[in-house]
């Protein structure tokens, strides 16, 4: 199981899902039409490290975070 966290304006509680890769995460999250919209603009971090491809193998207990578009300052 991995934990998925939704940061900033994606107002969702964290989810526990059964995923072995980020591809699996994408598949599961895209089944939710509201989340699907965010997937196109959100960056992804695994255990607080930003990743640039879905070619990441997930371990049990990993934490995946979705970061929507930012605007600090």
């Amino acid at each position, binding site marked *: 199981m991995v934990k998925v966290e939704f*940061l*900033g*304006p994606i107002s969702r509680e964290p989810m526990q899902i059964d995923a072995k890769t*980020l591809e699996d*995460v*994408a598949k599961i*999250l*895209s089944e939710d039409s509201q989340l*699907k919209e*965010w*997937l*196109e*603009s*959100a*960056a*992804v*971090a695994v255990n*607080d*490290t*930003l*990743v*640039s*491809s*879905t070619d990441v193998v997930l371990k049990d207990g990993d934490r995946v*975070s*979705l*970061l*929507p*578009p*930012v*605007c*600090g*300052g």
Partner: protein
Amino acid sequence: MLELYDGALHVSEILSRWYDEESESNYGAYIPFIGTVRSEDGIDGLSFDIYEPILQSWFDAWQLRAKEAGAVVKMAHSRGDVMLHESSYIAAIFSPKRRVALEMIETFVEDFKASAPIWKYDLKDSKRIYARERSTPIKGSGILGGKR
């Protein structure tokens, strides 16, 4: 050093303290950038969410980058609500020479805008509205969506 505060920043205190902290470090140039909430589109203020673990690692990488150029970077940012004409953001570069500082403050502030995991909301009619149209997708965004 990265400093996060609830609400508006105490600009004078921060600018003075940072100046004093480096007063014996032999830096010839100190350039702070101060960001203040402007009155526009009828907002009452702005509000901010910060994801601290990734902000901290982004900032740590910048501290290293500054150090390699012989410089120091400092930053302060607000969490939560900041009202009109209050300040929510200060970034500063100290360096021996002016050229490094002038170039780095610009690069730092632009990278901050593009990369720092901070979300901005307009405070308007007692609502907190995500400033989506002014926000920038972090580099590499969309890998779980259409951009795979």
